[in-house]
Each structure stands twice: as C-alpha cells, then as structure tokens.
C-alpha cells in the first residue's frame, strides 16, 4: 500500500527534501502546508493517511497543530519532525497523540523505519 501524506513544514528546502524521501519510498505527498490553517484544509480536502509536522513553526507550533488535527479527526496519524530531543517535550508530544518523532537532520533510513513502524501495511520501497 502506498501512503498519501501531508507535509507541514515552513522551511522550503526541508519540505522539498522530505517530499523527495517520501516519494523515494514509493509514497505520495498529496499536500504541503506551513501552518494550522493549511494543515486543517489538507486534512479536509485529501483525507491523507498521515502527516509529518515540524515542531517549530512561525505561527502555531507543531504541538498545537497536532492537537487541532486530532480534535478535527481523532484518527489522524502524525509524525512530529524536530531537532528538539528534550525528554519532557517528547513525552508531551506522544501524550498529545503523535505516533512517533523523527529527528532532524532527516535521514532516509530513519524515515523508512518510522513509516514502517507507524504504517505496518505500507510498502516502503
């Protein structure tokens, strides 16, 4: 099964690199967003299999976006992407419903492992 993913990330270069990696693994990026409004619109319009959400964003932080997405649809599966590795933030993010955390800088092998864990039925190339 190929996944349909949404990327929530403000840095254009990182967004492009994540998109490349997701596509390299045989999945599809159906939308890209930079903030909460964009993420909610993508959820409504595309009903994706999952999100990658950056933790530090200019408007709302990733934790706020995660909570809003989960409120709009409790089945949302979101992976938080960040260089922030603080133990208490990790706890908070997982408690808020994130399915996993992906550390920056993002590596293809790590993304493959995270997607394989979160979506066991997905075909990771």
């Amino acid at each position, binding site marked *: 099964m190929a996944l349909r993913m949404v990327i929530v990330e*403000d*840095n*254009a*270069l*990182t967004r*492009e*690199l994540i998109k*490349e990696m997701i596509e*390299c693994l045989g999945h599809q990026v159906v939308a890209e967003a930079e903030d909460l409004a964009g993420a909610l619109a993508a959820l409504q319009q595309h009903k994706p299999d999952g999100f990658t959400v*950056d*933790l*530090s*964003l*200019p408007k709302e*932080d*990733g*934790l706020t976006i995660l909570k809003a997405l989960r409120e709009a649809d409790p089945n949302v599966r979101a992976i938080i992407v*960040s*260089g*922030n*590795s*603080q*133990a*208490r*933030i990790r706890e*908070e993010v997982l408690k808020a419903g994130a399915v996993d955390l992906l550390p*920056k*800088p993002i590596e293809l092998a790590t993304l493959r492992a995270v997607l394989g864990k979160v979506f066991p039925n997905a075909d990771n190339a």
Partner: protein
Amino acid sequence: MQITPEDQKAVLGLLEAGIGASTAKLSAISRTNWAIKATALKAYASAEDFAELGAPSQYFFGAYCTSPGRVFLSYFSSRSSAMLTQAFLANSKRGLEATPQMQEVAVAEVSNIVINAIASSIADRCGMAFILSAPKSVRGARADIVTAAFGALQPVGKVFSATINLSSQDIAADCTLMMMLDDLIVNFILNALDR
C-alpha cells in the same frame, strides 16, 4: 543579578557538556568533524555593547531561535555557509541549485538543528521543557547579527551571553553558537544544577 566566577564556570560547563550534541549534528550534515575552538561568557546591558564585535567587513549568515528569557544564535562565515549549503543540498537527488536565497534557507535549517541540539541537552540537564521558535534568518556583519538576536530577547534584568566557537579543520569552516539568557533563566539554571 551578580554572576560569580563559580556561576560562570557552571554555565560554561553546562554549555560545553551540551555542545557535543551540536557538533554531532554539524558533523552529520557536513560529513566532517567539528571541534570547540574557544568559549566565553559575558554580561551585557544593552545592544551597544556588541560594537566590540567589530570587523564590519566580514559577512555572516545565521539564524536565531527564541523562547521566553533565552535566545540561541548560530552563525557561519560566508564561505562556511556556502559549503554547508552544498553539503545540505547533497541530500537532494533532484539536484537543487545552491542559489544565494537557498543559502539563507539552508543555513536557517542547519542553525535550527544545531541550536535545538544544544538547547535540548541544556533543557534535559536542568529539568526544563520548551519549544523554540522557528529560526529567524539573519545575515550581515557580526555585530548586526548579534544585535538582531539580542533585540528579540526582551530580557528581565541583565543578559548573560555564552559563546562557543567551533571549527572544522578538514574543510576550514567555522561556526559560532551564542546563548543569551536573562537573569530569570540564569537563576533557574544555577538552581537546577547540582553544584
């Protein structure tokens, strides 16, 4: 707040303990080794104090991230920025072009990663938890960059600034990391450290 030599030593020790996480990230991005060149701690009362950073002819690229009472800044010489951008773009199979605008975007993301690494180490050691802002890009002379970061702080009391200079001999590149903390955060850190 008066910071004693023992306090200074404790804050610098905290920074040095956390810098390993940042150098590891820099090494992963640039595929080369980085090491500490120098460390320093200073107290600042106003932005005018940064005039001492001088050398306005030198041009730097960097970014800072904020959280109440603290600012983390990292900046690179123009030459180092270009090299880091090339290394960062090497991850792209589609051959993204290293335009000047791309350099600013790449340095912002590298700074974001390096800053969060050291900030996370400090947070865990002091029992803190905070999400830093998205990186704000800065470029220009060193004094202008540092003044811009200082301006984002809105400190309570004095500002204590810890600086670490990193270098990579392999590629003759440099990076400066600065942590600016106000009185409240320094107090919190000193109380949290088991000295």
